[in-house]
């Protein structure tokens, strides 16, 4: 879609309004309910296990560049680093995009400072490996085996290398959490990881971890968005069925609006 038509403008406006309205509700102190996600609840436990074993944590952000998926992963890195830094446990972050290095370094530095563990911060824990998919995978596997990671986090966009990474994580005995908004690699993660965070849960991680009202409001807003989309789907099904029953040759109004939304 290159340009928005009036329907797309209206839809996006409504969806944004739902998010902002719920963020405001959260800020006003309303108790907004979000269900627990086992994978998120297990983050503390997984980091704790690495601490007990005296092994580092490995956090991979996948193959994505600096996009919205990676930004979410970087926010989670901050939280995981804070948990681990309290017990002077390293969080190694191999990355595929050199542009992410300063961002992750800053997040890790601030996480260490937040728990008074500045001396434990090591910039060498953020490592650019390669921009090539399988060179990156080989590099991560090497780190997993050399450092004997006690816990691994795979948050971001992954492709065929996902299984290579998580199977090797299994081999070194790491407790593994994988999270991806893309459904393509979910089956592999389900087969090899202890906890998997899928689809929209990926974007709810920070809200669940922090309990921040802004983030919780935003997640509740997502539910409203889904209701709107569900309503549109049901309306589309009904209208299409009605058109077929009436043998109408002209597309119904929703179809015309949505076609126009394609620019």
């Amino acid at each position, binding site marked *: 879609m290159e340009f*928005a038509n009036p329907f797309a403008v209206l839809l996006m406006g409504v969806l944004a309004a739902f998010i902002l309205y719920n963020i405001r509700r959260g800020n006003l102190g309303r108790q907004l309910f979000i269900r627990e996600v086992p994978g998120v609840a297990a983050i503390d436990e997984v980091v704790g296990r690495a601490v007990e074993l005296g092994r580092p944590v490995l956090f991979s952000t996948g193959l994505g560049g600096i996009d919205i998926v990676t930004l979410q992963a970087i926010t989670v890195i901050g939280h995981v680093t804070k948990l681990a830094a309290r017990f002077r446990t390293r969080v190694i972050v191999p990355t595929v995009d050199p542009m992410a290095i300063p961002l992750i370094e800053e997040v890790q530095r601030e996480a260490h400072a937040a728990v008074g563990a500045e001396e434990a911060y090591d910039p060498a824990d953020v490592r650019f490996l390669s921009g090539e998919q399988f060179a990156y995978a080989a590099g991560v596997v090497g780190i997993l085996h050399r450092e004997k990671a006690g816990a691994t986090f795979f948050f971001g966009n992954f492709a065929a290398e996902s299984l290579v990474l998580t199977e090797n994580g299994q081999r070194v005995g790491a407790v593994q959490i994988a999270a991806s*908004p893309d459904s393509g690699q979910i089956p592999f993660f389900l087969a090899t990881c202890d906890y998997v965070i899928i689809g929209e849960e990926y974007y709810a991680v920070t809200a669940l971890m922090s309990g921040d009202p802004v983030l919780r409001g935003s997640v509740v807003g*997502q539910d409203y968005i889904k209701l709107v989309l569900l309503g549109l789907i049901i309306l589309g099904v009904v209208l299409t069925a009605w058109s077929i029953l009436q043998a109408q040759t002209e597309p119904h109004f929703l179809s015309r609006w949505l076609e126009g939304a394609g620019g």
Partner: protein
Amino acid sequence: MGGSYPYPPGLGQEWLVQHLFRPLPGPLALLAVFGCVALFALWVWGMMRLSSGGRRRVTAICTFLAGLFYALAFFLPPGNVATGSAEIGGQRAKFTADITWDEIPDPNPPAPPAEGEEPPEEPSWREPRPIERNLTGRLELTELANEPTAQDGRDFLTISGKQNADGTWALESLGPDGPTPLVATSDGGYAVTTAAGTGRLQMRVQPAANIVKGYEAPLANALNILGGFAIFLGLINLSLVHGRTLFGAKPGWINSLAFFFGLLGMIIFGLAALKYKDLDPTAPQPFVAAAYAVMFDGLLKPLQSTTFALLGFFIVSAAYRAFRVRTTEAALMTIVAFIVMLGQVPLGQMLTAWIPLDSPWAVLRIETVTNWLLVTPNTAASRGILFGAAAGSFALSLRVWLSLERGAYFGKEF
């Protein structure tokens, strides 16, 4: 200039494309590269000098401006439409027109290759071809209150034209007497003469593309260049990590030594081999070109393929772990996976091949069941995940754009 570049006149985009985003010759190119590196270093230095809060504010402002740019590029209407009205011979008419972008033919096109000769290689950069904004529309000369009575040459009048470099339009009508130029009037309209009489046409043309869209491509180029510089960050990072291991004689130092050999080898041979890139690959290769080919084609590519090939073994072990029947869900998944696997191979398809295709029981043929499983429940579940992820992505994008996100660089800390 005979036509306009694919940007509305007067926005400066043409200037950017012609002067800034174009290859520079010899020493100027080198100067431009060093200038960009200096600017990049200055920006990084400036950011490092700022306090954490200052960096966050700068990031928030840049993020907001970038988000606003893309939002405007998406939400502002494209404008390749002209609408208007006319009063001709006492009748009111409405006018609608489409606007197209047409490339002006090259006055000196390259000669086609001779018989048996290979076409010349496409250059990596080409001067943007001038593009003309053309209009073709129809004046529907119908009294709005009445039903239309189609009479060619009276009720419908085709109007076409080109946009001048100053943004005005040169229009002509294609009536039964041939093309007739429309005369621009002082009120911004045009005088029209038709078989039905004379009148005035008022036309409103939306901005070309939209005012922001034209900057998207140059901006994407700039981001690519910025990304190119980031590789130096990666190289510095790698060199620091491996330098520490190597010079500290830490365990695994031999791997770090291999890294430096690989890095230097690739840089030296890669740059030296550039001189021979047009050499016939079947002819004897000079040492540097052969060394680069060995490192890249003989070492890097096979190693990457080997890592990829490991996937086959890992799939087996992962499948074993996934299909151990310990819960109801695992049992269900195993049964479904078994059916899908059988449906994909000829041996499995043979099991139900005895069911005639035209019988009502044909739906029980294993390939039909497999197809249904893949297309119906699988697609439904995938789309469900997709919808949720899209909603989450939208919400997160909004939070990042408006600096409502938490964590370093985004806003306040957790």
